């Protein structure tokens, strides 16, 4: 049985209230900016700035407390549980988008084409419509952008997969280096992973430009365009966040943080990167190939 002395009770902190103010300013501003209000846009940007300041300030304080030996194993455990819930929310987030793709592709679009017991749905609504995926020829394209084609799996997506898989390997090298007390290997592996992450994002931008400028494949291109950009776009956002987190971990590694037996910050970011990598692999197969 643990005694009450085993619990770490932090000092009072102003970070939570600052974060709340930032969040309120950002979301309130965003809602207001949708109505064309310039003050709303300013509030949104200001709120975003406050949140960034809060994240770096708060996490910086936590890192400092960790490095000065304030934390015990009970705090360590609480970090792990927090990470577990964060991961759970991330899995649910992507499950929703993959689920939307599955629903559209396997159920609703074939139904519109008269599949299953929906023969009359097809005949009454759009008799000429034939259900095919990717859905380029929509039943009624009045309010949508009809794309000329889709992104070839063989080109940038394959290169991006190679890039991300390689980054998984370099990160694993960094991880092993940390476990084997090889600081140079840890730093080198992290730098390589960050560079590969940035290359991935650059290629993703090139792919989107190709889609928008040459293929007319846009977010407004019906259910195919919507699911394509929502899935790959949110994945790209996760790679961006992962890269920022890896940069922070690199800075800490350079400063001599992390030991082979205590490095939860590294483990959490590494797992997150591997998760984002696996999500991409799923996207690569489901969106571009199958």
């Amino acid at each position, binding site marked *: 049985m643990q005694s009450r002395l085993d619990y770490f009770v932090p000092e009072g902190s102003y970070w939570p209230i600052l974060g709340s103010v930032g969040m309120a300013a950002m979301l309130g501003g965003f809602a207001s900016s949708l109505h064309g209000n310039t003050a709303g846009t300013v509030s949104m940007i200001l709120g975003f700035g406050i949140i960034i300041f809060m994240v770096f300030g708060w996490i910086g304080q936590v890192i400092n407390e960790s490095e000065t030996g304030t934390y015990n*194993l009970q705090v*360590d*455990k609480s970090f*792990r*549980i927090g*990470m*577990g819930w964060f*991961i759970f929310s991330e899995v649910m987030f992507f499950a929703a988008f993959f689920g939307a793709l599955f629903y559209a592709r396997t159920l609703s679009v074939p139904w519109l084409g008269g599949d299953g017991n929906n023969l009359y749905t097809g005949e009454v609504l759009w008799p000429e419509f034939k259900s*095919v*995926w*990717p859905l*380029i020829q929509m039943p009624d394209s009045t309010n949508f952008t009809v794309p000329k*084609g*889709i992104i*070839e*799996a*063989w080109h940038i997506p*394959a290169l991006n*997969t*190679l890039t991300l*898989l390689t980054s*998984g*390997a370099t990160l*694993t090298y960094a*991880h*092993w280096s940390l*476990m084997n007390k090889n600081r140079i290997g840890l730093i080198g592996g992290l730098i390589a992973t960050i560079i590969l992450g940035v290359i991935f994002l650059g290629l993703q931008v090139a792919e989107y430009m190709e889609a928008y400028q040459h293929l007319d494949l846009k977010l407004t291109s019906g259910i195919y365009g919507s699911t394509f950009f929502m899935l790959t776009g949110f994945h790209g956002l996760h790679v961006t966040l992962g890269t920022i987190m890896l940069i922070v971990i690199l800075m800490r590694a350079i400063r001599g943080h992390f030991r*082979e*037996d*205590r490095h*939860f910050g590294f*483990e*959490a970011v*590494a*797992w997150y990167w*591997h*998760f984002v*990598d*696996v999500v991409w*692999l*799923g996207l*690569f*197969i489901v*969106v*571009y*190939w*199958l």
Partner: protein
Amino acid sequence: MNYIILLFFIFIIYSLGSALYYMMNDSGGGSKRMVKALTIRVAVSIALFVFVLFSFWMGWIKPAGVA
């Protein structure tokens, strides 16, 4: 073909999931279970990528395209 790809995915998610389990449970102590699981994750992922490219080369699968 889809079942083979699914099998690869089950392996990948299993190794990623076990890495998560080890991260949650191995508090300190220098346990290498997590990094080992992640190494398997990377290896199987690369194998899947190579398999997809090989299948394409052999003509077993073709990318989603405009019909």
